[in-house]
């Protein structure tokens, strides 16, 4: 698998999961490119570094000498790059920028914007070491420049459209570089080398969006990889206690006796408060189980990342990557 597209409902942890996936895939001395496409500098924020330029920069090391590079893909910069590559129009680019024409063109043809962005990622997938110039023929005997590319993609609601490049350019120029380019992009995205992963949390709406998104992505003829359940809370109580509590049958007397034994003040009132907490927790766990059961209905590999109590800092990305590696990513 060489191109991993990471999507999910907003805020479920796409950027975080994509970065962790990149680290896991880079373990053992591999080179991985992490690409963001929404112009939000989410990767820079996650790694606590200055905004990324439109260039590939190392952002993290992985165990065994692996390296993760990152790129903030930008449709306007990509368009100027193509103009230069195919028409040799470097100066024209300045005029276009001055008139706001690049922004304008990508606005009136949103499909083109998407193709330029997916194009950056797929170009990196195909690129070989020592290729004469980008966009030229890739020397097939050379190793790939990146072992894998991970894309921090748009959210679930937009991802099928975003990746369905052919449909996106259907209304655009029928000949010319963009069209040629779209064919190449689609070939990579449709190929078995590419998988779309869905990040979700154990809540109703993100899970529903995941199921809808999987159906849409499949309908577009693309491959779904795994469901990555993020922010999983560790089980704090054992199943029998939870079952009792959910049924409202928690043994309050036993609780009071325990609190007395621990020498806590006001054991009766404390026990009532604690019992309420346990009941809430039990209901929550039951809800999460129901959601897991719904996710089970689609037969896909499942990955999990724990909820980090203090949020994710740059230093945590490696640990999250290690959790994915433990679950078989990169093997």
């Amino acid at each position, binding site marked *: 698998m060489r191109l991993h597209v990471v999507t999910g409902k907003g805020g479920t942890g796409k950027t975080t999961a994509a970065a962790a996936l990149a680290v896991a895939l880079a373990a053992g001395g591999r080179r991985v490119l992490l690409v963001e496409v929404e112009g939000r500098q989410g990767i820079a924020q996650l790694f606590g570094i200055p905004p990324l330029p439109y260039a590939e920069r190392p952002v993290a090391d992985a165990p065994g000498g692996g390296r993760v590079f990152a790129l903030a893909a930008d449709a306007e910069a990509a368009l100027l790059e193509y103009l230069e590559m195919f028409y040799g129009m470097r100066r024209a680019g300045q005029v276009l920028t001055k008139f706001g024409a690049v922004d304008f063109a990508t606005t009136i043809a949103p499909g083109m914007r998407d193709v330029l962005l997916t194009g950056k990622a797929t170009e990196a997938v195909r690129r070989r070491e020592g290729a004469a110039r980008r966009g030229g023929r890739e020397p097939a005997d050379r190793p790939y420049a990146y072992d894998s590319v991970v894309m921090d993609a748009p959210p679930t609601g937009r991802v099928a459209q975003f990746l369905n490049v052919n449909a996106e350019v259907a209304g655009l120029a029928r000949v010319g570089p963009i069209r040629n380019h779209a064919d190449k992009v689609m070939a990579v995205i449709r190929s078995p080398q590419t998988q779309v992963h869905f990040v979700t949390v154990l809540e*109703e709406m993100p899970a529903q969006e995941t199921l809808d998104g999987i159906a849409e992505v499949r309908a577009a003829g693309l491959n779904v990889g795994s469901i990555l359940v993020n922010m999983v809370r560790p089980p704090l109580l054992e199943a029998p*206690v939870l079952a009792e509590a959910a049924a409202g049958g928690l043994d309050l007397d036993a609780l009071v006796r325990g609190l007395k034994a621990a020498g*806590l003040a006001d054991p009766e009132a404390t026990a009532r408060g604690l019992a309420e907490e346990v009941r809430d927790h039990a209901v929550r766990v039951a809800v999460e189980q129901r959601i897991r059961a719904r996710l089970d209905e689609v037969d896909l590999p499942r990955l999990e990342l724990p909820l980090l109590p203090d949020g994710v800092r740059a230093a945590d990305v490696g640990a999250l990557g290690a959790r994915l590696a433990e679950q078989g990513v990169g093997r």
Partner: protein
Amino acid sequence: MSAEEAAGAAAPGAAPGGAPVFDVDALLADRDTRIIVCCGSGGVGKTTTAAALGVRAAEHGRGAVVITVDPARRLAQSMGLTHLDNTPRPVPLPEADGAAPPGTLHAMMLDMKRTFDEIVEAHADPERARQILANPFYQSLSSSFSGTQEYMAMEKLGQLRQSGDWDLIIVDTPPSRSALDFLDAPKRLGRFLDSRLIRVLGAPPATGAFKLLGAGVSMVTGIIAKVVGAQVLSDVQRFVGAFDAVFGGFQERAERTYRLLQARGTGFVVVAAPEGDALREAAYFIERLRRDRMPLAGVMLNRVHRAGVPGLAGDAALAAAAELAATGEHPLAGAALRLHAERARVAARERLLMDRLAAAHPEVPAVEVWARPEDVHDLAGLAEIGRALAGGAER
């Protein structure tokens, strides 16, 4: 409970740092309140809050309508909404205390494409409307442009307001990551539609617009045509031609609706979850409302976690649990104490974040609503959120 009592009580419902309590019931009961806008960043509970305010408003005898955008499926079903539909439908409210609520609630799910189509149909003669609706550029503009949903939410609000049929209109805002999008996107879209380049494209060659901009323009449009295809450009051209004749300045239209939001009788409810990002967004939004002289009614802090035994500190609970574990007895109490420690930790972190917002904006009324262990998916759940909103998080 009066606002003063609520603020004085050390109950968790009271906003911290002496900030005033957001008296939601007073806002709803005030007949001069005609529009309530719920905004905030994605996933914080805007839609839920808008619907809960609607239910509560009906309990206050108001004739309310809620414009929802992208409601959770089960919640929509519970309100009798099964598909995108621009017509407000009556919501069958359950009896409260054995009596039907004195007011009424209607709800609709915003269909942005249809709203746009209806504006076109209302303003253009049939032939021109047909041309516009069939135009590929219009179709992409009305169905997938960023900003269109925000724009159409405002349009719908304007229409319902103008109809005069509604005593109280509650608007939910589109699920964007930034709360500010609701205010900015319509103008951004208007600016684009009125932009220099699109004007030039719309004008026949060799007219004033071309001369004005000089020779660079034909080169620019030439390159654009090469890149996006001549067909796209001519679609845009035809669209602008037809559209202009009907609407004149688009930006002006956006600005008119914007002014409605500044009018008396409008109140913004900023919804936030007690998390860093959501609270930062809320703070930006509060500052923006002030700058634009838009009336902020209050902040709703939603999905707040609380500890069931506020007096028991997390470390004390952990120490007690360790003591019990050492004896090997009372496993239930040990487990409950560990769970409590975890909840106390979460509650303390959330409190700290909320205190920061309150310290930065001490004059802004706020109310807290607890995180329910289950999502809000029926009318009873909405009524409960409504009560929590009104009672400052008591249960």
